[in-house]
Every structure is written in C-alpha cells, then in structure tokens.
C-alpha cells in the first residue's frame, strides 16, 4: 500500500461525494451550493499540496546554500592554513638568512686580525731565515742582530695583539651564535653584549661610513635571552641600513639604554635617516609589510623584532618617525624576564 500524504483529505472528499448523491435525492435545491463547497475544498487541498512543494523547494534551496557556505568556509580555512604555513616557512628562512649574515660578519671581522698575524709571522720567518744564513756563514754583525731583535719584538707584539683580538672576537661571536642557536637564558652584561653584537655587524655598516653610538650603563645586568636581544639589535640595525639612509650618505645610529625603574630596561634605537610617513610607521610591524618588495625586502624583519620583544622578552615596542626626522624604536622590557614556558621555536633563532 502506497503512502499518501493527503489520504485524509481524499477520504473526506469521497465522503462528501457520497453525501452529494444522498443530498440529490433528499434536498435537490441544496445541491449547487454543496457542490461549490466541495469545489472549494478541492481547490484548498490542491493549494495545500502546492504550498508543501513550495516549502520543500525553499528548504532544499536553504540546505544547498548551507552546504555551499560550508564548502566555502572549509576552502577559506584551508587557504588560511596554507597561508600560515607559508608565513611560517618565510619566518624560518628569514631567521636562517639572519644567522647566515651573522656568520658572514664573523668571517669578515676575524679576517683582519688573522691576516695581520699571518703577514707578521711570514715577515718574521723571512727575517729569521736570513739571520740563520748569516749565522751559518759566520757573517752576522752586531748591528744586524740588533735590527733583527727589533723586528722580532715588533712582529711578535703585532702577532700576539692580533691573535688576542681574534680570540676575543671568536669568544664574543661564539657567545652570540650559541645564544641565537640555543636561546639559553642567562645573566648578561648588556653594554658588553651590545658591543659583541655590533662587531658582527661592522662589515655591514662600516663601508658606507655609518656609525653606531652606544650609551648604556656599564654595570647593567640582564637575566634574559641574550640571543633574542642580539637578533633584535641586528634586525634593527639592518632595517636602518636598508631603509633609513640615502645612498652615499653616512648615517648615524644611537642605542640608548636606561632604566625607568629598577626592574625595567628601556632601550631606544634611533637613526638620523630619512624617516617615514605616518601611514608606513603605522604598519611597520605587520608581517610582509615592505616598501622594498622585489628588492630584497621580505617585510619580516621588524615583524620578527616585534614578536621577539613581545613574545620572548615580554615587553613592548613602539616606533616614532616622521619624514626627514629619522626613526626611533623604543623597547621596554623587564630586566629579569618573567618565568614561563616558551615554545622552543619561539626563541630559537
């Protein structure tokens, strides 16, 4: 037996038609009016069926629309996931690039003292060979020996001095590199650490005649993540070198540190470069915001700085700039970084 949604209506109509027959015999004058009633009921039933179909159609359309929305939402979510992954990958490669720049800086910087030591050693070796020949031939004079001694003292002084310099540099770099790679928390003298970091950046700004002045209390000790601090400083310096100075102009940068209270460090990084518009300074910490797209700018340098200051040092950073009036970044963070569990990738540079 098939299911009929309108069985009750049809049954009522069948009864009405049976009644119509009886009414025809009993009260024929009522018949036309009764037939009108039946017709009205029939019409009403058909309309009811039609409305059910309209309603079903609307429901189906609604359900299609909801499915479409669901589909679009999943698509948008997937696109967002991809974007996040791509962003993550870019941040990672930016970190690697910055580590690469550090290594290049180290190599360049150590090259100078090592080069001097090598040429001094070579000079000393030549002089010593000549001495030996004279001594072997029995023709070594007193004056000549005195000259040799003077040369030996000078060159060994230079060799020693430059080797010590190289050794200091290596120790400083090693600390910076280890800090960056391992994100170890330790106590560090801020002034010395700023110097170590700047040395690794020397090759970047010295050729153009740029200079960095540092004003930092010599005895200020931090209990924090020095590797992060070093990364922040190099990104700020690199950002200034890339954007602040007109080509050929020797620019000045200044790092000024003070403590507004015993537990807070305020570090201001300022340049005297061309500055930027309000529109740009408002967006400067946004990821991928760059005015040098396609010319080496990834738009991540200052974003990373912002994330490190806020996320790792648990401080804040603000920027102040105007066209032709230079740019200054002011960082404020606790002298002793509050304890908390940091995700490894947040601090591993």
């Amino acid at each position: 037996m098939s299911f009929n949604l309108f069985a009750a209506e049809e049954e009522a109509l069948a009864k009405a038609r049976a009644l119509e027959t009886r009414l025809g015999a009993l009260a024929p004058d009522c018949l036309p009016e009764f037939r009108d009633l039946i017709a009205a009921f029939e019409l009403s039933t058909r309309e009811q069926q039609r409305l059910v179909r309209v309603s079903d159609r609307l429901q189906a359309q609604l359900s299609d629309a909801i499915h479409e929305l669901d589909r679009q939402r999943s698509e948008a979510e997937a696109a967002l996931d991809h974007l996040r992954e791509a962003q993550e990958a870019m941040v990672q490669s930016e970190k690697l690039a910055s580590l690469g720049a550090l290594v290049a800086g180290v190599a360049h910087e150590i090259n100078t003292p090592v080069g001097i030591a090598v040429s001094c050693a070579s000079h000393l070796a030549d002089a010593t060979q000549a001495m030996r020949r004279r001594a072997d031939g029995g023709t070594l004079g007193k004056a000549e020996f005195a000259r040799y001694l003077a040369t030996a003292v000078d060159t060994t002084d230079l060799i020693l001095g430059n080797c010590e310099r190289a050794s200091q540099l290596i120790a400083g770099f090693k600390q910076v590199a280890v800090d960056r790679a391992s994100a170890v928390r330790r106590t560090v003298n801020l002034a010395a650490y700023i110097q170590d970091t700047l040395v690794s950046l020397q090759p970047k700004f010295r050729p153009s005649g740029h200079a960095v002045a540092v004003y930092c209390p010599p005895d200020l000790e931090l209990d924090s993540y020095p590797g992060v601090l070093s990364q922040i400083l190099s990104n700020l310096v690199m950002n200034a070198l890339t954007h602040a100075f007109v080509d050929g102009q020797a620019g000045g940068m200044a790092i000024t540190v003070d403590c507004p209270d015993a537990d807070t460090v305020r570090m201001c990084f300022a340049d005297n470069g061309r500055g930027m518009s309000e529109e740009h300074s408002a967006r400067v910490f946004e990821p991928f915001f760059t005015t040098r797209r396609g010319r080496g700018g990834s738009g991540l340098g200052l974003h990373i700085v912002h994330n490190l200051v806020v996320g790792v040092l648990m401080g804040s950073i603000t920027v102040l700039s105007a066209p032709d009036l230079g740019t200054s970044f002011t960082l404020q963070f606790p002298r002793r970084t509050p304890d908390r569990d940091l995700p490894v990738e947040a601090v591993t540079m």
Partner: protein
Amino acid sequence: MDCLTIPATGRTPGVSFDFANGHLRMTGESYPDDVAAFFGPVFEALRSFLDDPDGGPIRFDMELLYFNSSSAKALMNIFQMLETVAKGGRSVTLTWCVEENDESMRELGEDFAEDLRHVVFQMREMPAGGPP
C-alpha cells in the same frame, strides 16, 4: 487609481500595476516580514481594478525569482481572482517567467497553472542573473 507602483526592496517584490493598460507585473524576490502589511494594499488595489465591469484585457507577468510560502499563497489568491474575472469573460493572460535552468521554478509554474481554466497561462524564459 491608474497605477500602483511599489519599488522592490531586499525582501519585498517590485509591483508595477498599470491599470490603465491592464498590464500588471511583479518582479524581484518576495519574503516580506509582514505579509499582510505588504500584500494588503496590493490586494485592495487589484480587487477594485478587477471589480470594474468595463475593464479591458489583462496581462499579468509573474517575474519573481524567489518567494516564500506566504507569498506563494498570496500568488494563488491573485491567480484565483484573475480566474474568476476570466471566467466572467474578460481576457486574462498570465505569464510565468523563469530563469533559464531553473527547473524547479518551471515545475512550480506548471503546478500553479493547474487550477487555471479560463486564464491563458504561458511560460517565458528569462536569461539567468536577474530580470532584464
């Protein structure tokens, strides 16, 4: 009254009843918040137009793209009013406009035509993407 013109809004259809020429048209989408408030004046104007015994032929163009159940019932009532005057001898043509490929709207039109004996019913296809 020669004309009844109600501009379409997001939820209510556009109504342009040109009574002088017997050309009535409904366009857009119909799912009013208050069915009585919207259709009340429409029915009143239509009723007085149809009550005129000297009226000429009527063309009614149903160009709605979307309507809810209450609007469907209102349409059926309008069609019955048209059917009544057509039965009385007045020429009435009802054109049910559907967008290309809107099969379910076409089926609904055929369904709605079921009770029209005296009204001339025709189906017209419009290009998809809105009425011309």
